[in-house]
């Protein structure tokens, strides 16, 4: 049984998504080169991760029409790690203290 032939996208969409992903990658690189570190920059970078991951999952992997378990688990992963990145940027000392092997 073929469980793959259920396209939820069309080729035109795919072409546009590819260009969008390239532009967002270049934006991230520009931030890396130009911007000073800060909370807003961190949030923007993490948002770019989420958007890029969603585009790949929805359109390149075509998971939108597939098993909801796979779809939601994949999405959750790529929401979770960018969120942790922001939290670590906000609370590094607390995390360091919490994970210190020897007492301060």
């Amino acid at each position: 049984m073929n469980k793959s032939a259920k396209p939820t996208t069309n080729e035109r969409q795919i072409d546009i998504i590819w260009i969008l992903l390239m532009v967002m990658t270049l934006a991230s690189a520009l931030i890396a080169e130009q911007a000073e570190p800060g909370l807003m920059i961190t949030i923007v970078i993490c948002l770019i991760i989420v958007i890029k991951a969603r585009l790949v999952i929805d359109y390149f992997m075509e998971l939108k029409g597939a098993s909801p378990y796979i779809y939601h688990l994949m999405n959750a992963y790529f929401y979770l790690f960018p969120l942790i990145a922001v939290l670590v940027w906000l609370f590094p000392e607390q995390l360091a203290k919490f994970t210190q092997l020897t007492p301060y």
Partner: protein
Amino acid sequence: MNIQNITNQEAILSGSSLTTSELLEASSKSAKQPFDPALIPGNPAIWVGIFSELTEFGLFFVIYFLARAHYPEQFTNGPLQLHTVAGTINTLVLISSSYFVIKGIFALRNGRPNAAVRWLWMTVAAGMVYLIIKYWEYQWNLGNGIEVTTNNFFAVYYYTTFNHMLHVGWGSGGIIWAITQIKAGNYTADSHSGLIAAACYWHMIDLAWIVIFPLLYVLR
């Protein structure tokens, strides 16, 4: 006048014989994603593999976060010493490789196996370009005195990117296998779940890099 009356009147005015419940149900269905719980792209085994790999990468990310919290100065200065252009080009190459894979799938679905093979060879070529750039980047690092033992940031950088690089290597092998199956006539427009499995694995490699690149090259 309640919503039900308005909906009934709209249905009457538009000449439709739909009842309110039918209209609401249709609206609800159109708003939801058309999920199919039985549809597992490729095969179940590849998803066990994909989630195992993502767990492995997840552990690398956890190590990154912990090391970052304990050595903030190293993680603020580290990305500045890396070759951002090499990382950016590799990101563009991997995203393009994912694009070539889905174009290959579309070509096969549309009954153009030769075009599908060409797209998939472009994917493999992109994978090779990625590996060459990564090798060059490591050499450039070593030339600038950046080694695994330089500090904790670079230890995380080398372990994470080297592990990812290995995945690009054997992921390319999966795509080459799919190419041989198309050429042999085993994957057709109507039946090519093996290609979908290889493609999903390849996209997972791209997705992992979508997180790795900003963590190591961009965030400070």
